[in-house]
């Protein structure tokens, strides 16, 4: 799809300047700070980041399932089709959830109710939002299981989640997420718990379903490989902040943030002469501490004096349009170097 098309379509889901904090025993943890992104119909945006970078929390904020009262949204807006989600009553909110915005979780076994058959759980969507009876909901569940290619759906609909393999369980989750043809689907590490061949099948399935329903897909992952196949645009997060965004091609080919560059250098490549993999030195900062200046500076090979003093803003790079941005004091040098 061309960039031209995106600009003419209004975004379905807009997250603007979102900040989330958690109150813990050791003090306040700022899980997400000033995060902004937007998804349009038919578009896939990947949110990349390592564990603890705030990517899952930002998804939970969209669905309103952050663990309260420990976690709370301290600033920002989340708009779906122009409606402000954070100012809605819980009742209005629950009508958006599932019907318009749905989510796939990482661990399908934990995310499915162990005491209900999968048919009941997929069918629940129809009973909740469409007021269908149990019988009818079961029929719809079978159709959906067929759609996500679970073999022998008519028999398996009465099985419990533990009777499925990992890949099939993930399909069950996908079936219930797409039950009501949501406009936006958020997939939080949908393939992390699966082995590589099954990963590929699941991603392929997600891609098909997306283009079929013209859904906006938010794919949350730490795996650059998984993202590379499906994403249109990429948003890289580090320590709760967005550090770089752009189209997949721009970010992967010409990263403009040292962290992104480090991530890409640490992937084993077959198409390049062999050299030692270059890991990113150091470890991500503890969420309890605040780092002066750029949060990445202790690990950054490009560090200069200003990095330890001033927090770099997320700024547009060159003439690539407003969707191509990086939060680095030396973004233009990094960009040219790689």
């Amino acid at each position, binding site marked *: 799809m061309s960039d031209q098309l995106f600009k003419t379509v209004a975004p379905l889901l807009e997250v603007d300047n979102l900040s989330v904090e958690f109150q813990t025993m050791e003090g306040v943890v700022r899980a997400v700070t000033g995060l902004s992104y937007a998804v349009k119909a038919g578009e896939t945006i990947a949110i990349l980041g390592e564990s603890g970078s705030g990517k899952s929390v930002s998804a939970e904020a969209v669905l309103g399932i952050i663990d309260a009262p420990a976690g709370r949204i301290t600033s920002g807006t989340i708009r779906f089709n122009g409606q402000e989600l954070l100012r809605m009553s819980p009742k209005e909110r629950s009508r*958006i959830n599932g019907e318009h915005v749905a989510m796939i979780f990482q661990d399908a076994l934990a995310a499915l109710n162990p005491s209900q058959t999968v048919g009941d759980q997929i069918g629940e969507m129809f009973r909740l939002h469409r007021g269908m009876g149990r019988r009818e909901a079961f029929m719809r569940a079978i159709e959906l299981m067929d759609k996500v290619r679970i073999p022998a759906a008519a028999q398996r609909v009465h*099985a419990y989640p533990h009777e*499925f393999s990992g890949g099939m369980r993930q399909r069950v989750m996908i079936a219930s997420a797409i039950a009501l043809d949501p406009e936006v689907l958020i997939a939080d590490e949908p393939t992390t718990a699966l082995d590589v061949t099954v990963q590929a099948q699941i991603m392929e399935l997600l891609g098909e379903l997306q283009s079929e329903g013209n859904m906006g897909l938010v794919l949350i992952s730490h795996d650059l490989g998984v993202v590379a196949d499906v994403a249109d645009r990429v948003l890289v997060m580090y320590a709760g902040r967005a550090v770089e965004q752009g189209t997949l091609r721009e970010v992967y080919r010409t990263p403009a943030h040292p962290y992104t560059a480090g991530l890409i250098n640490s992937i084993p490549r077959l198409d390049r002469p062999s050299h030692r993999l270059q890991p990113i030195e150091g470890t991500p900062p503890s969420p309890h501490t605040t780092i002066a200046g750029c949060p990445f500076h202790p690990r950054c090979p490009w560090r200069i004096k200003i990095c330890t003093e001033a927090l770099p803003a997320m700024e547009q790079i060159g003439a690539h349009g407003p969707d191509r941005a990086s939060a680095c004091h030396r973004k233009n040098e990094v960009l040219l170097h790689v």
Partner: protein
Amino acid sequence: MTESTDEGPPHNGKVHFGFRTIMAGLLRDPVTLFACLFLAFLAIVAVFAPWLVPHDPMAQSLALRNRPPLTPSENGFLHLLGTDALGRDLLSRLMMGAQVSVSIGVLGAVVSGSFGVIMGLIAGYYRGWADDLIMRFVDVMLGFPTLLVALFVLFVVGGGYVNLVLVLALTRWMIYARVTRGMTLALREEPFVDGARAVGAGDFRIITRHILPNLLAPLLVLATLEVARLILAESALSFLGFGIQPPASSWGLEVSGGRSYITTAWWLVSFSGAAIFLTALSLNLFATWLRALSDPVQRWRWLLGKKVAVAVMNGTGGPEHRT
């Protein structure tokens, strides 16, 4: 699709869970079979006691005081378990007593269970001040000795069937509240509860469809054990004279009545005591079985029998080996 099912029961993932496999399983497990048969027998006796009794449980006969088991009677039936100090047929009295004792046990468990579970769900799900209020109240209630509270309340409001049920519920609901709250706390953090919220389910639906069903198996086991406990408590209270009032019958009352004649008429306390003991034992065994059967992840083991289950575990690995 080439994915293999790497866990769970054999036979392509599902052991049929129905009447026939349950019956086959019971035949392999004689102790549980005995418990189930005894409880079924008890249930029938308790429900139909007025029509089944061989003698009028109230009919006294001074000629037949404290007669041993198998004494012949005027109406042709034997006094199978003997007669009591007023010449009343012990078997008939125990049957009528079963009706009282069993129904008090079951009703008490239902009343205390319902109240305790609702309190526990509210405390565990909503947390905050509701949690503090309910659980501190539970702590206070648990601080009182059960029997003493029951005795005191019954002394004030008087004995009798309804009061007995309510008092027993009053002294036992806390355990349900505690168990329910603990499990609710764990369950409300489960991803599938988040998932339910993410698809737009409200609090009521999450509690009734996602939390309560996952509590049901352990609560059912707890309630079964509580029935046994309540029957014992009823017996104790009736024995002490604060429960069921004569001339009505209950097992505790029969033990109490037979106590004075323990040296001369052993059958009075023995059979009444045996009824209490066997019922409590069967309920405990039944609870164990219910636990195994009510867990959809684990029930295949019992349904297949120990030998087959062990073979399956050694051969292909069972659900615990899941990573």
